[in-house]
């Protein structure tokens, strides 16, 4: 795709408990972002929110946060999926020519105000799966983990290796909620099992947080920023809901979403053309699983790639240099944060975790149990 939509700026917040309200979080993120860019809400013509009514404990929950973002008497809509879908939806309004400046705000307070691992029970088919009383987000992820490890011939220790790399990166990223100094594979392996083979430190931490991002047209990008990050491609795909009809050892939704995004961005060989990837892996096994599905790592060779350091910040194919969702998962915002962290890399502002040559990046978001839905965007300078 030609340069039609750019990220002009973003703000991220994440902590186990932000000790705040949804309205104040939205106000702080969006006002902060407008201040960063030296503009006011008058410059924004469209607002896209991303939150989840169930986790907010009320229906049509975005009506309460619209004015806090500066959206009084402006166009306001909500996407109730992962935030990367909100970014794609917001981009379409700009590509169509209707809007020049769109604020995307995604958030949840699932660290302090909801039980993230357990709410999944309420998203299950109430007449069958929920009656079985065997599935929640963790047990489903554990089934997926076992399936992936078995299919790839990987040892359970791969989970410790992946988590150790992510948590090391997360510790060096001030934007993350879970920051453990000097985290080791041994410490990860010593954390308790939730559902075998998944241990506490293989799983995302319950997180309060959000992300505000300003998307702008090519014309406005020139006015607002010296470092525009361009949207080069996007794609999405949704698998079947029922786990019994899916191949849990891979992710068809991620493979197809990526294929569509690569086609749009003109990418033929993702492993060599992409400089880094920010992947929404909520559990340690999902990072190599999704990376393989999207063609970033060779199938069956993930363990060797991690051990060789290929996926580290200084490696051949850096994956989640931000630390990824094992560092923070504010549900609804996490995929949007992947895009923001990728943009931070492309702007050369990632500090200790900066990838040397960062020109083209992939961001992945997911929704539903075991990445039923995937969204992928390709970003470039």
């Amino acid at each position, binding site marked *: 795709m030609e340069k039609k939509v750019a990220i002009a700026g973003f703000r991220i917040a994440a902590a186990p408990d932000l000790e705040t309200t949804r309205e104040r979080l939205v106000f702080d993120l969006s006002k902060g972002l407008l201040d960063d860019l030296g503009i006011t809400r008058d410059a924004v013509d469209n607002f896209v929110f991303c939150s989840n009514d169930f986790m907010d404990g009320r229906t049509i929950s975005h009506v309460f946060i619209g004015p806090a973002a500066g959206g009084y008497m402006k166009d306001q809509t909500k996407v109730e999926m992962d935030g990367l879908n909100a970014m794609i939806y917001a981009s379409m309004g700009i590509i169509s020519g209707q809007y020049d400046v769109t604020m995307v705000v995604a958030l949840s307070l699932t660290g302090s105000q909801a039980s993230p691992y357990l709410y999944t029970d309420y998203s299950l088919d109430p007449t069958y799966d929920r009656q079985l009383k*065997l599935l929640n987000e963790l047990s489903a992820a554990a089934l997926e983990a076992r399936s992936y490890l*078995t299919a790839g011939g990987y040892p359970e220790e791969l989970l410790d290796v992946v988590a150790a790399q992510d948590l090391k990166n997360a510790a060096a990223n001030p934007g993350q909620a879970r920051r453990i100094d000097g985290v080791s594979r041994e410490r990860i392996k010593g954390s308790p099992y939730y*559902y075998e083979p998944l241990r506490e430190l293989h799983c995302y931490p319950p997180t309060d947080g959000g992300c505000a991002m300003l998307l702008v047209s090519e014309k406005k990008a020139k006015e607002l920023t010296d470092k525009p990050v361009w949207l080069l491609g996007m794609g999405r795909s949704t698998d079947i809901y029922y786990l019994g009809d899916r191949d*849990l050892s891979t992710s068809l939704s991620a493979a197809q979403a990526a294929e569509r995004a690569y086609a749009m961005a003109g990418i033929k060989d993702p492993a060599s053309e992409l400089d880094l990837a920010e992947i929404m892996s909520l559990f340690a096994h999902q990072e190599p699983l999704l990376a393989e599905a999207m063609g970033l790592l060779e199938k069956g060779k993930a363990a060797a790639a991690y051990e060789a350091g290929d996926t580290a910040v200084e490696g051949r194919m850096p994956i989640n240099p931000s630390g990824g969702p094992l560092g923070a998962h504010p549900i609804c915002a996490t995929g949007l944060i992947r895009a923001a962290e990728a943009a931070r890399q492309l702007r050369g502002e990632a500090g200790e975790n900066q990838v040397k040559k960062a020109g083209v990046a992939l961001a992945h978001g997911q929704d539903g149990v075991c990445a039923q839905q995937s969204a992928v965007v390709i970003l470039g300078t």
Partner: protein
Amino acid sequence: MEETKVVTGAWELSTFKFNIEGRGLQLMLKHMKDRKLMGIKCHQCGTVYLPGPFYCRKCHIRIDEPAEVSDHGQVMTFTIGYADVRGNPLDEPRIAPIVKLDGCDSWIMGVMQGCAPEDVHVGMRVKVHWAEETTGSLQDMQYFVPE
């Protein structure tokens, strides 16, 4: 940090009613009384589902052809749980496999007994352990045991 106050609230979930397209489930339950598993087959692509849906997810057509599925199969993946789905600790670790029954394309989830957690593996052959007295309910299929 400014002070924030906490107010607790709840959604009354029991106020929801769910209508179901129950033919496939009814078919399955009816035959479970005779210790048989009856799914539904797509007449176009041949996919066999259990419990049977009223349409084929791949072909997007209505389907209604009954197809018997074996009560033997193999473990496709499994997890060992230490807490129930609401997070309450269990007395004993619980093995929960997903099983591909012979003659069926969709997989089914259940619990497994008669086997130590460390002996479960992907690919292992298992069979359904039926209730002593079957009544035509989901409880008839009590758990899986090694073949």
